């Protein structure tokens, strides 16, 4: 491998080029192209039927693309030998083998990754520890609750600390506490592994992801860093309370005063949400400076403030474009 290609490989751990999947007459994924930087956490976002799981399955090598290609660490996902121990996958609906004991299953998976018999047990115990499941070692997989099974599946993905982790709906169907614990397990891997997460839970993705691709009806509708997608570097939103019944929370004069602040591009009032949306020139100032100036002016004008957010939130962004 030449130095240039080594450097490229480190820049992008995962590459999808013109990825297309057709099931009979149905076009499930249409011409997706994106790259995932090494060490980052990348989200695959979209409504039901958008093509997230199909895309995920092609990344994991479960589905063959009808057209296009995927590269994981420079290899096709089906190059099992080259990627052995370097890729961990949490498939969404895969059921654990019911008759296997948890420990036995994880040891078997570790051994298939090329770990020696002695070290496989150690590796399996460590992975189970990562998901706080050490006590389940002798449990039969078929006797686990949904939350426990999900964490065992996560543990098998963590086996051997892979360079790339593909997680499909890691918290789907889990109660909030277990979901939080799973999120912490994923966050603990951040920076050490390149992680691709496919999820419906936009708040979760906003919390854990550095970048994302938004898919709708099989097509890529937006991709970029989380800051770019949520416009955190170019927009702030101030939620205001109305002064009284039938009274506007803020009048046109105050809005005009806000517009007169330096480096502000536009100021709008979203009357339904009672939010002042302030867009600014990101090349001249930053969100924190704008927040300070806007709040000072509003407080001077005795406007009642309920909250401030940077950007429009991932959920809002996804609703806008899908």
């Amino acid at each position, binding site marked *: 491998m030449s130095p240039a290609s080594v450097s490229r490989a480190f820049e992008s751990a995962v590459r999808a080029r013109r990825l297309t999947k057709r099931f009979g007459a149905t076009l499930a994924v249409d011409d997706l192209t994106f790259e995932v930087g090494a060490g980052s956490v990348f989200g695959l976002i979209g409504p039901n039927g958008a093509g997230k799981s199909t895309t995920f399955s092609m990344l994991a090598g*479960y589905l063959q693309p009808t057209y296009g290609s995927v590269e994981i660490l420079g290899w096709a996902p089906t190059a099992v030998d080259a990627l052995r121990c370097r890729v961990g996958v949490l498939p969404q609906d895969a059921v654990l083998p019911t008759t296997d004991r948890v420990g036995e299953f994880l040891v078997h998976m570790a051994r298939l990754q090329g770990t020696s018999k002695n070290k496989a047990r150690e590796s399996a115990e460590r992975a189970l520890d990562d998901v706080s499941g050490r006590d389940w070692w002798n449990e039969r997989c078929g006797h686990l609750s949904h939350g426990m099974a999900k964490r065992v599946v996560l543990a098998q993905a963590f086996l051997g600390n892979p360079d790339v982790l593909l997680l499909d709906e890691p918290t789907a169907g889990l109660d909030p506490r277990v979901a939080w614990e799973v999120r912490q397990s994923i966050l603990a891997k951040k920076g050490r592994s390149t992680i691709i997460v496919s999820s419906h839970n936009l708040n979760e993705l906003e919390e854990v992801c550095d970048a994302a691709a938004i898919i709708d009806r099989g097509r890529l509708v937006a991709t970029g860093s989380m800051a770019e997608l949520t416009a955190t570097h170019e927009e702030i939103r101030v939620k205001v309370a109305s002064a009284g019944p039938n009274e506007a929370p803020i009048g046109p004069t105050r809005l005009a005063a806000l517009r007169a602040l330096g480096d502000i591009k536009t100021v709008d009032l979203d009357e339904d949400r009672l939010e002042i949306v302030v867009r600014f020139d990101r090349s001249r100032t930053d969100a924190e400076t704008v927040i300070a100036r806007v709040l000072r002016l509003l407080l001077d004008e005795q406007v009642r403030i309920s909250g401030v957010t940077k950007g429009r939130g991932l959920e809002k962004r996804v609703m806008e474009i899908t």
Partner: protein
Amino acid sequence: MTPLSEVSLVTWREVRKSFRSAKGAALAVISILGGGAMSMTFAWLDRLRREQAANIALAQSSTGIDPHRAQVELFSRWYGQPNMGTALADCPYALWMMLVATLWLAPLLVALMTFDAVSAELQRGTVRFWAVRARRSSYLLGKALGAWLAVLAVSLAMNVIVWITAATVGHQSGFYIVGWGLRFFAVVVPVTAAWCSIAVLVGSQLKTPMVSLLTLCATFFAFWVLHIAAAMTKNGWLNWAYPSAYDALFLSPDPGDIGRGLLGIGVIIGLSIGAAIFAFDRRDL
């Protein structure tokens, strides 16, 4: 990691799984009970036959019928080859009947033990845990080998019950019984391997275990029809497609026949596993 290591890991797990699942345990118990029932029946038939032979021996002086000669005649006609009569004339009859029964039941046993080996894992998505760690060909080979070993274990258990019964109630020594038993079981080994490879080919294409079972039964029935058609139309070459029909070649005293048998079974296994791997490598999981 070599493909051989992958195959070996998948194989042993499959064997463990086969006997640990409720279906595997139930099948093992039924097979062993069936083996017991068959052994009692064969022992009873053997006693009857020996009584008849004694009667015939009494009448031999007047009729000139030789019971040994009658047995030579029986095996020669059954296998359609004169040398088979001589080769098998002294075998324990109960063990030979067990061999015939095992070969007849082999497709059913294989279908019941292998129908969900791959299809259930496809349906539940369990195969995805293996797909990122083992070559698909290794996974499929491991499944086929594991299923075959499980079928062999159940067949051997059934056979051993018959050996024990034959040694207990019969007039021949234990060593003599085990010697013939192993020789007959050696016929079952390649034949079940061929049935298992066909079962894996069919089962790996289907995602629903029940559909897999029905398709397997239909496929094996079609093979049996072919075998019957071969016998009725005197088209012996059709029999090459029916694994259970290779018994004559494997029992033959002629090494050339055994070689031809191994070649034929090898072709069936090669074609089935080759086609299964080819299709499985390209299918969506």
